Each structure stands twice: as C-alpha cells, then as structure tokens.
C-alpha cells in the first residue's frame, strides 16, 4: 500500500454542549474553500417547524443556495443530520442519518437516508447537523472529534481512492485504539466520474473487527462530495448509553424501547426473518406477484428468480449480528465474508461485501437479466467500493441494455461491448468503466435522463420510444418495483418529492395485493398519510423497518392494519419521552407535513415542483411494446373489456396498447388531481397559501415564491 500523509491545515476548538432532550442545539458549518469553521445555534422555531434530521438539513440547504445554484457550485451544501431520537441504543433502528444536497441527477433537492454511526456520533460530538459548503483545491479529510472537542481539516495525500480501503485506513488512523469510536463518510472514484455517486457511512463491527458500510445512495450525493474535494468526513465519539441523548423521560423511553425490541425478537423469526436474511425475502415474493423488475422493467417475473432469492443468500450471508446501529434487534445489514471477485482491482483477493439488499439484487440482477448471485455480489462490492448507487447503476444499465437489444444503439457506440441482457461480464465492465471514467460506462454513468438526450442527439435513436422505456422521473432512476398494475404505486413513485424512490411511499402490496384502497379518494389518502409518516422517520434519526416490517400478531384485528397503529403510537410515546414535547400519532403526521411541503416548495425554488414534474414514463404505467402486452395478454384484454368497456374483437395488439395507454394515462392524471387536493395543493401541484399558513412555513420568501407562481390566498 502506498504511503499516505495527513497534514493538519486547520483546528477549531469548541466547548461541547450537553445534549438536552435529544438535541445538541447547534449545527456545525464548514466552508472548505477557505477552511472557515463556525457554529450556528438551533432555535426553538427550527425545532418546532423542522423537528430535526431532514428538516434541519433542508433549512440549512435552503439558506445556502439560491434558485440558480447548480450541484457543482461552491455554495451548494452537503448537509448531514440525525435527529432528536438518533443515537438511542434501547430503541430498534435509531441510528439513521439523512443527507441532503442539490443533486447532479435532478438539479433539485435530494435526500438519502443511511445507517451507520456517523449521525449519532456527530450529534453527541455537539452538532445536530453538519453543513459543508465551498470547494477545496486539494483533497481534505474533515475530522469531528467529540472526545477532544475539536474539528480539524487535514490535507490528505497518498490515500487510496476506493472507499473500501480508505475507510479502513481512516478508522485505524483516528481510532486511538478504539475503532468502534469512529465513523467514516467517504466515496470513491465512481463518484468523480459519474452522476450517480453514493456516500458510504461506516459502523464498526466488533465481532468481525472491521469497518462495515451503509450507503446514502440516491441522487449522486457522492459526486457533490468528491467535487468539493472532500476525501472523507470522520466523526469520533465514545461510549453510548440511553443517557447520552439525555431524554426527558428515561424510564418511559426504556419501557417503550424494550416493548418494541422484545416484539421484534419474538416475531421477526416467525415473519420475514430479516435478522437472518435482510430484505432478500422480497425477491421471491415480488417475483410471485409479477412485481420483480426484469429486463428494464418490461416484465415482473422470471423463471430463474429463485437463483437470486433468500434461500441462496441464507447460505451465502456470514451469520452473526449485523445491526448498523447499536442495540437494534432487527439487525438486517448482512454481508458476505471471504468473497473473491473475478474482475477488477480486487480480482482474486478475499473481501467482505456489505449486502446485497433487495434493491441491489433486483437492480443489478433481474433487471439486467442476470440471475447469478455471485455477479450481483461482485457488482454490489464494486459499486460500494467505487462510491456508486446500485439502484441508479442497475436501472441505467438496464435501459442501455434494452436500447442495445432494440438496435437503438450498437457496438460502435458501446466501444465494442455487447450489452445484451444477461451479459454478466459486460455489466461488471460497465461498473469498472464508470469508476475509471472511461468508455461507454462513462455514458451510462450520466444516468437515464442524459442518456436519452445523447442517444437521440448523437446516435439518432427514437426519443419518443426512449421516453417511454427510460425509467427515470425528475431525473432520478426508478428503484426496483414494477408499478404497471398499481396506480397507487405509480403515484408513490411519480409524486415523490425527490423522484421515484420507494422510501416515500411503498403502496404496491397494499394497493395491488390487499386492495386496501379501491377508490381514488382512498388512494389519495394513502398518498398523503404514508409519505407523511415515512417522512417522519427521517426527521428523527430513525429507520422505518421496525414500524411495519414486523407486525403485531393482533394487527389484523385493528381498523387500519396497513398503518400498524400500535407501533405508530409507540413512536409518539418515544418522541415524547426523548424530547419532552407531548405528541400523538396525529401529531407525528403534522410534523412531517410542514417539512414535506417545505421540500415541495424547495423544488419550486429550484425550477421544479409542479404538475409537469410529476410525470412518469409510460413503462411505469403500462405495456409499451407488443411483446410486453402479449406476455400478459389475458390480463390486459380482460381489463379493456371489463374495466374500460371496449370491444376488442379484431383489434391488433398495437391498437389495444394504444387504447389501454389512453385509459391508464387518464387515470394517472386523475390520481394527481385527487392527491394534490388531499395534500392542500393547487391543481398545478403547488402548496396553497392556506396550507403553508396552517403548517407554519409561511416565511416571507416562501410566500413570495408562491405568489411568483400565481398562488394567491
């Protein structure tokens, strides 16, 4: 390994505040252009309106950028925060961080949630949020040392580019013999050379004696990080107990935390076994319900899906505790020990791979026509190591593969690479090229939206067809669920603030399988309540999995089983116990509404956030090509006859596709109307003056922005 050198450029000493009821009550601001480090107070108004986590991030980012700021401008900020409950060891899933910035893919606000120790360590070091602006001409490492109460900026030279080795080196360098005290945020060379760079957040695995990784994957945040010249951000903190967060009522906190922990311990083994197999159980289930994306979302099922399902990964995962935060009983962050890649710089070398999770299996597997678990594991490893988002890599490569198979692009464009579905070596080579910034991988690394422009402009490909099959919305690649048969999930993706990512609204089972929301009004209500409640986890530093991935045995007897209200009430108790602010389950929704609407308005500020920006490609709504229609002809024919009262006698497939499309696109527009109304937005998808007044986000600049877009009271 090459010798590396760390030269301290700046040291900022501070007095660490005592954490009060989950808050440090200040944020840390670092401008790395000239190494200015400062501390800003957190006001009561900030806590009342924005709560913490993503709310604080958005407020800091809003004040950092203007409406013309691009992702690579110095004033763009990377904001990282946990939340008032973040860092609680007694309650499962309480170690999340949220990262926000202006995205290279979407040009607007992106947020990405991630596990690992960084967010809690940042807070316990004295900062509810971190805001990094500016750009450094030389690679720097930022070190936030809560133990010695100092923030340092180092000039780093000779450090490896890849996240895998870099994080291990920095963990050792800063640990002072206690590696569990360290969490490293870093990216890799792929982030520099693509628009889909991720950030890796570490947590230290005491049993395996290594830094483990979770990813803030979506929207190219890693690219902003690399463009700023940040090599890594490291936080150091000491022992964590329930008292570290200084909760308002420790006894209530322990009581509710133990209830939820015990329930998971008792029920997870009976239900999805996530503590053993993570989210891999979804592969088989999605496949059975025709929801597993295959071949660029053309189909939802494949005969070889079992080759990449839970029964395989149960054997491959290294058994042991895999909690990405201390004390989490769900502990779903599994990994593969002693994996030996067949390609790339780690070829022939044993590595530990963190993952794969469902999204990676579907994105880098079935959606590429790849049903070999070892190829998926290798893609997972290199994406993490290179700092690439496995979802955008998968969905973008799937689009390029379909274009290749359809002849829209050919080997003269791909530099001789055969990009047929199922070509495992080509898929891996694409990832390596992304990291090196070379070849056709560099083009794919620009994302689906830009590929559509390049293929049309430079290669003469049909732009209309690519618009239909290119699975992006708002510039972000779709995550890995088929939505053709679930109108609610089409809305879950299309109406999501940052683009089609399932963390805002995963309604596909509730809608399609359980039929919980047959009417438009019910779908609109679901597209209000679920995004709001899911948003709330990101305000507080929490993981949503304990909420509804383990379900109480009596849940089905409750009036609204989809909401798992017993857990929602526990979360209200948890919030009250930590912050001392009395709330109820309805109160949690109101907290989110303010932040959610503020983010929608932030999109408006950046030139988006209107009805037209909620459009989705037709592939997400229905069959684009005759082969898609004909593969499920019985289903579509039946719908045309029974639902749309069409006499299909003598019709060609093309005619039936056109009719189905007309009906389905109309339904999607009708859904927009219903959701906007429920959310208190205009018919153009903009929050009304009444809505922002009600939510307390009626800041002068917000009102001015709304008026500029024709929204009056």
């Amino acid at each position, binding site marked *: 390994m090459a010798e590396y050198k760390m030269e301290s450029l700046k040291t900022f000493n501070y007095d660490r505040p005592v954490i009060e009821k989950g808050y440090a009550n200040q944020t840390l601001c670092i401008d790395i252009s000239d190494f200015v480090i400062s501390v800003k107070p957190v006001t009561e108004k900030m806590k009342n309106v924005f709560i913490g986590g993503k709310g604080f991030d958005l407020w800091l980012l809003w004040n950092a950028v203007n409406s013309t700021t691009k992702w690579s401008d110095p004033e763009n900020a990377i904001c990282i925060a946990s939340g008032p409950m973040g860092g609680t060891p007694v309650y499962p899933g309480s170690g999340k961080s949220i990262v926000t910035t202006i995205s290279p893919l979407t040009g607007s606000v992106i947020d990405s949630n991630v596990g690992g120790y960084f967010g809690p360590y940042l807070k316990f070091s004295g900062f509810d949020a971190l805001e990094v602006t500016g750009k450094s001409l030389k690679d720097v490492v930022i070190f936030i040392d809560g133990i010695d109460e100092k923030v340092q900026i180092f000039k780093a030279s000779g450090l490896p580019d890849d996240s895998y080795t870099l994080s291990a080196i920095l963990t050792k360098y800063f640990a002072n013999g206690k590696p569990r005290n360290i969490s490293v945020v870093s990216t890799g060379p792929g982030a520099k050379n693509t628009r889909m760079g991720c950030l890796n957040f570490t947590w230290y695995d005491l049993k395996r004696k290594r830094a483990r990784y979770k990813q803030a994957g979506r929207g190219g945040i890693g690219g902003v990080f690399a463009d700023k010249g940040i090599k890594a951000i490291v936080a150091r903190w000491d022992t964590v107990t329930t008292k570290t967060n200084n909760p308002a009522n420790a006894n209530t906190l322990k009581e509710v935390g133990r209830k939820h922990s015990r329930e998971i311990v008792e029920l997870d083994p009976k239900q999805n076994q996530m503590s053993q197999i993570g989210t891999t159980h979804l592969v088989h289930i999605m496949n059975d319900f025709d929801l597993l994306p295959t071949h660029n979302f053309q189909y939802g099922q494949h005969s070889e899906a079992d080759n990449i399902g839970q029964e395989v990964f149960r054997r491959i995962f290294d058994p042991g505790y895999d909690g990405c935060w201390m004390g989490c009983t769900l502990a779903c962050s599994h990994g593969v020990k002693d994996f030996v890649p067949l390609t790339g710089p780690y070829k022939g070398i044993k590595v530990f791979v963190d993952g794969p999770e469902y999204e990676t299996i579907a994105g880098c597997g079935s959606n590429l026509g790849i049903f070999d678990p070892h190829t998926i594991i290798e893609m997972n490893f290199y994406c993490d190591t290179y700092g690439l988002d496995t979802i955008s890599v998968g969905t973008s490569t799937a689009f390029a593969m379909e274009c290749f198979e359809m002849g829209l692009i050919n080997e003269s464009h791909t530099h001789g690479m055969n990009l047929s579905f199922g070509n495992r070596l080509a898929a891996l080579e694409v990832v390596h090229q992304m990291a090196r910034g070379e070849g056709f991988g560099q083009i794919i690394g620009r994302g689906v939206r830009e590929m559509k422009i390049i293929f049309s402009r430079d290669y003469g490909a049909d732009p209309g067809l690519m618009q239909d099959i290119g699975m992006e919305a708002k510039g972000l690649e779709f995550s890995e669920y088929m939505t053709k048969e679930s109108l609610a999930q089409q809305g879950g993706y299309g109406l999501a603030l940052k683009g089609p990512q399932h963390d805002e609204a995963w309604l596909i089972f509730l809608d399609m399988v359980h039929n919980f929301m047959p009417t438009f009004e019910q779908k609109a209500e679901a597209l209000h309540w679920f995004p709001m409640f899911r948003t709330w986890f990101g305000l507080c530093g929490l993981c949503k999995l304990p909420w509804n*991935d383990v379900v109480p*045995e009596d849940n089905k007897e409750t009036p609204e089983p989809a909401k798992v209200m017993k857990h929602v009430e526990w979360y209200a108790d948890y919030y009250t116990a930590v912050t001392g602010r009395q709330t109820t389950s309805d109160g949690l929704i109101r907290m989110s509404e303010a932040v959610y609407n503020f983010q929608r308005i932030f999109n408006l500020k950046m030139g988006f956030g209107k009805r037209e920006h909620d459009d989705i490609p037709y592939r997400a709504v229905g069959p684009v090509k005759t082969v898609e229609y004909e593969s499920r002809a019985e289903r579509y024919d039946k719908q045309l006859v029974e639902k749309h009262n069409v006499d299909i006698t003598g019709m060609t497939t093309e005619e039936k596709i056109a009719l189905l499309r007309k009906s389905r696109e109309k339904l999607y527009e009708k859904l927009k109307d219903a959701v906007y109304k429920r959310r208190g937005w205009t018919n153009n998808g903009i929050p009304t003056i009444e809505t922002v007044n009600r939510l307390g986000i009626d800041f002068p600049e917000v009102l001015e922005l709304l008026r500029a877009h024709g929204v009056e009271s």
Partner: protein
Amino acid sequence: MIRVNGKKYSWYEGMTIKDLLNNFNKSHLYAVVRINDKHISRPYFEKTLIPDNSEVFLIPMIAGG
C-alpha cells in the same frame, strides 16, 4: 400435526395453504405464508400442499421497500 404461528393444528393428507387459511378470520390479509424456511405467495396457496410436521407462519406482508 402442524404448528401455525406456534400453535398446534391438526393436519390431513392433501391439506393446502388455502385449506388452512379457510380456518382463519380475515385470511385475505395474508399474502405470504412461510412453511418452515420457504415463503409461498398467494398465487400458489391453492396448489401448495402443507407437509405433516411443518412449522407454518402466516405473514401479513404489508411492508417491504
């Protein structure tokens, strides 16, 4: 004899998942059933036989993602 969510249930030759669920209220909420370590989804409830001595878990499956 089989166990369903930890409780004993009598078993008979040819018993399918659909047959079993007929004994439960609100069985439409179960989209997935686990027999020992294998998940079976609703489209296969009717044709999947439950072996004797199985551990069966009824999974609400309202989450994911």
